[in-house]
């Protein structure tokens, strides 16, 4: 059953007052996961119009980038979307490497892939817990954080940070991965599949969850294209768009992995895409651990003072929420002339207003949870 009202507020010929009221969700609302404010015009429990108001955590990362040298901006990249810090650093490091034509050693690329995929799993775990707590099930949150903790411990052992890693460097990595990390990751790859099965049995197959997500919040592929939504949102609409496949970067072409898509385009499709993605990430990590060889972890000749040759450079990665792209216009100085960050959450949020029209409030919030928004990623 789809609870959806298509013709809203039919006040006949202007007779009688229009029975709507404005509900201000946020910026401090338990469902907003941060400082997102949604001005909803409600007709009873039906949403007539839900307008996201953003900017409460805007930190001017783009402008900061234009006032700093490349190396000085590097730590900022981890703070745009703090849940997939590795991917964001990867994109920024990648664009500089592309402009300077630095050849990154194979070992560094493999470790980048391993850490990126670990980061993706950790990010999806947070999303999973948060979505379930949006739906009123508070227990999965702690289960998810239990597993995420293992990833964070691994990454902490590797680079010292648990959230904002800043682990990649122009031309390689901050330090080499030791055997502890590689063996720990191997153990984690073995540990995780039974947990994912448990999550499926406990949560994904639960009748209440299915009723809450199935056929709720349809977001068609066409709508995704109009708003530029990427990542699990567009894959949940049946489009196999994944930057790792479409614009291959790093050593991703060497791995065999599937891009999970579900054509139903509802909240459940987006949910299942992410659950499957975790399995695929584990596959990638497994292969990377088998293929990795000893070798240098930094490119030999990285200039101490980095000056990009004048030009326009792009580098896109598949972050946990979709396509993250860094575009740089350089005029040959030590700082970029223009730094553009294309963040996935911004596009994924912008379709909310259209998609939520006519939905009932709890369903709209469930759909918002299935978009996996990170507010600093929207505002950057």
């Amino acid at each position, binding site marked *: 059953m789809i609870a959806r009202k298509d013709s809203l507020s039919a006040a006949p010929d202007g007779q009688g007052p229009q029975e709507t009221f404005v509900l201000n969700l946020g910026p401090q609302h*338990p469902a907003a996961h941060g400082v997102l404010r949604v001005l909803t015009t409600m007709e009873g429990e039906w949403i007539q119009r839900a307008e996201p108001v953003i900017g409460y955590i805007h930190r001017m990362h783009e402008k900061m980038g234009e006032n700093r040298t490349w190396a000085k901006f590097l730590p900022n990249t981890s703070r745009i979307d703090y849940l997939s810090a590795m991917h964001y650093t990867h994109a920024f490091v990648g664009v500089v490497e592309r402009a300077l034509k630095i050849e990154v050693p194979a070992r560094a690329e493999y470790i980048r892939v391993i850490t990126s995929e670990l980061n993706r799993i950790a990010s999806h775990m947070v999303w999973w817990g948060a979505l379930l707590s949006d739906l*009123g099930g508070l*227990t999965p949150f702690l289960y998810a954080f239990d597993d995420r903790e293992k990833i964070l411990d691994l990454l902490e052992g590797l680079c010292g940070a648990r959230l904002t890693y800043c682990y990649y460097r122009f031309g390689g990595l901050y330090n080499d991965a030791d055997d502890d990390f590689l063996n720990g990751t191997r153990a984690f790859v073995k540990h995780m599949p039974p947990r994912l099965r448990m999550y499926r049995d406990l949560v994904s197959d639960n009748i209440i969850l299915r009723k809450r997500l199935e056929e709720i919040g349809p977001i068609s592929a066409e709508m995704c294209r109009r708003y530029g939504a990427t990542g699990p949102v567009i894959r949940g609409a049946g489009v196999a768009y994944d930057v790792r496949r479409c614009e291959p970067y790093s050593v991703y072409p060497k791995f065999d992995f599937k891009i999970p898509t579900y054509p139903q385009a509802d909240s459940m499709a987006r949910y299942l895409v992410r659950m499957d993605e975790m399995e695929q990430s584990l596959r990638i990590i497994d292969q990377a651990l088998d293929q990795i060889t000893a070798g240098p972890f930094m490119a030999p000749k990285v200039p101490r003072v980095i000056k990009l040759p004048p030009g326009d450079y792009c580098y896109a990665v598949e972050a946990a929420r979709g396509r993250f792209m860094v575009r740089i216009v350089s005029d040959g100085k030590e700082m970029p002339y223009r730094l553009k960050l294309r963040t996935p959450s911004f596009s994924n949020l912008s379709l909310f207003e259209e998609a939520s029209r006519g939905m009932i409030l*709890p369903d709209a919030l469930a759909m918002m949870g299935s978009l996996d928004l990170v507010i600093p990623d929207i505002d950057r």
Partner: protein
Amino acid sequence: MTFLNLEPIRILLYVVAICAFVGLNAAYLVLAERKIAGRVQRRPGPNEAGWGGLMQPFADVGKLLAKQILVPAGTDTLLYRMAPLMVMAPPMLCLMAVPYAEHFVARDLNLGLLFVFSFGSINVMALMLGGWASRNKYSIISSARVVSQNVAYEIPMLLVVITLLMITGTMSLQEITVQQAGGFWHWNVFRVWVNPLMPVTFIIFFICMLAETNRAPFDMAEAESELVAGVFTEYGGMGFGVFFMAEYSNIVVGCCLATVLFFGGWQSPIGILSGGAWGLVWFMLKTYALITTVMWVRWTFPRTQFYLLLNLSWKILIPISLFTLLLTGAMLKLPLLWKALF
């Protein structure tokens, strides 16, 4: 014992005992809930205050009592202040008619069941008033939900109870308990020869009880991820605390009733160790097992959606309970008809 039969002393004892029972139950069920939540979520739960967290309720109550009572501007002050009082009264009255043991009941009313249900169902008024008086949009949405939810679930619950009444033939809770003597196979929930759907009626009763007490997965009144805190959004301090005490008291009432109606009340499940203080032990064991189940359900399932909740009631539970009603009637009366005709 004669002095116990004096009416004023009985009333006084009743008031003191029920107040203590309700208060301690509410306080310690909150702790139990947090401990169970901790167990389900694999964390210790509150363990700092007292021995293993045993003093936590007193710390909480102390904190809540110390808070300033704020009445937000624009509220209907009288109703806003009255709602927490009104929400507490019905469960306390309900507990009066519950037989905890063979001779341990405040008032053995011969219409006990009717009494409990009539007071149990006005509990929703207090929530509605509280939500309405708060003048908060979240509260008003939530109180509208509470009303329709309670109306929807009252019906299958009463149908189930009528089914049971047809079997027992009495409204006295004590007599219903006495009828179920002699081992667990005599309990109403297992009386499948009277009506093969008896276990189903218990499940319907349990689901309705969850919905009536606004417990997860039907906690529309306090859908914290949608409506902030629902009806209780504008309440703070002890006003907020009283709503929660009432919620737990209602759970106690519901579980007591389920124990009496379906699980033989104070009767021993195996026939031995019955009578006297053992009755109280069995009653409490059964009741708290049910309460633990209620908490276990809460920490396992996500919240359902409002229209799904109403669909469940109107489209599934009411037809099934109507069917069991008819079936029970048929099974009770058809043999008599058979005898009369042939």
